């Protein structure tokens, strides 16, 4: 225990920032042009968030399931695992989150009477976070000096998927049970912050 506590996060990270950012460039190039479809889906999800209907919530959940499956399988499974030996665990974390949201969608579809639209304040906060993940996050990354080919787009890049999920889930209804869907996204953001803190 005392030996492990003498390691810093920096010591434990076995890849460089350049290698990590190159993964986004390579995964974006290989995925092109399907990013356009994913952005269109994300924009529709933003619109449906404002409409506030049970059908809209189902579509948003389906979109999020797709995004977690895609970022888990495509980015983490195919690319991140090449340089990070513990990324296999992250892959399963993303699969679990996708399954949780699919189950939540089925549960709410069968109990539509329990659906209550989110209040204006929560909707505003959630919509702001979701909008950031879709429209602002990719450009902030580029402005930080990284190659624009490595833009972190929702659906492929894990960080905007996690951020977007927090926003969409907050805004989609007033049900407290939806907070269960925030555990893994928040956990992932902790991982992301820890990773960036070592760069």
């Amino acid at each position, binding site marked *: 225990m005392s*030996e492990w506590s*003498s*390691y810093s996060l*920096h*010591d434990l*990270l*076995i*890849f*460089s920032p*350049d*290698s990590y950012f*190159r*993964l986004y460039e*390579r995964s974006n190039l290989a995925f092109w042009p399907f990013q356009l479809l994913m952005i269109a889906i994300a924009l529709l999800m933003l619109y449906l968030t404002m409409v506030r209907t049970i059908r809209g919530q189902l579509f948003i959940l389906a979109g999020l399931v797709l995004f977690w499956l895609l970022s888990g399988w495509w980015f983490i499974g195919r*690319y991140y695992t*090449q*340089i*990070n*030996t513990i990324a296999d665990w992250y892959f399963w974390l993303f699969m679990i989150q996708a399954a949780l949201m699919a189950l939540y969608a089925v549960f709410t579809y069968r109990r539509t009477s329990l659906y209550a639209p989110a209040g204006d304040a929560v909707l505003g906060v959630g919509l702001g976070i979701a909008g950031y993940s879709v429209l602002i996050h990719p450009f902030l990354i580029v402005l930080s000096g990284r190659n624009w080919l490595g833009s972190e787009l929702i659906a492929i890049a894990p960080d905007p998927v996690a951020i977007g999920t927090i926003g969409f889930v907050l805004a989609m209804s007033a049900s407290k049970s939806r907070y269960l869907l925030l555990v893994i996204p928040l956990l992932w953001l902790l991982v992301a912050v820890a990773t960036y803190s070592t760069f």
Partner: protein
Amino acid sequence: MNRRQFLKLGSLGLLAFTNLNAKSWPAPAYKTIPSSGEKIPVIGLGSFVNFNVGNDEKILAQRTELLNDFFNLGGGMIDSSPMYGSSERNLGYCIERLKPVDSLFSATKVWTSSVEDGPSEIEDSRQLWGVEKFDLLQVHNLLSWEGHLETLFEMKRQGRLRYVGITTSHGRRHSEVEHVMKTQPIDFVQATYNILDREVEQRILPLARERKIAFIANRPFRRASLIDWAKQYPLPDFASDIDCKNWAAFLLKFIVSHPAVTCAIPATSRQDHLVENMGAMQGVIPDTAMRQRMIDYVESL
């Protein structure tokens, strides 16, 4: 000295130093492995992080050039570990494209808590590197060292391995390292040594000399933080007295000028940094008084 070695020494300007005064070693680029008498270049190459780049062919083409430069500048030892992600696979990829590489001194580690899994992990590493046999296998961070050393000594006895070693880093478990050095017939010990982390000078380096064990210095730049910090300051005036034109050569020369140090293994992904590192194999070698001046200067910054 064959033609290839002659050309290498000539390209480094080393031939010019073979007749220098007492401050220079007769052959400053090489040191002897005490257990065998074999000479190896004093500057090697670490592969932690810098070769863990996945299956990125664009980057791998650059790393292949880096390794080519390393060998052309007189480098020999390359150190890796199964712990370093895709590094072993990528070293194999690059080396395959440079073959034949006569001067490669392949060094990797066994890194598993299961002694039973050691042989299969070692075989996986050998296939990833694409070498017939490893020059050096080390027990990584003393993990299950008793059992793994038995495996490695048996491999050496069978001629499937040339040297056996152990490693630690960050100054950890030095008393256990000393115990292994005193009780086991190992050829190499690897630990952290640089101008600010000098704990090994107290017991491990003297023990290495006494027991005729070669010493590999890891973390010569504290990953990169030591050299990044040092570069904020000017080199001392006396750096030119020991033929150091940059901080990399200054910091590495300090390490490899210790009589018990056999080799330092800085890691880099940049060719300009590689050239600076390999510069530590040239020119005058600091003596004891000069080494103290180097410490005093760095500690005054």
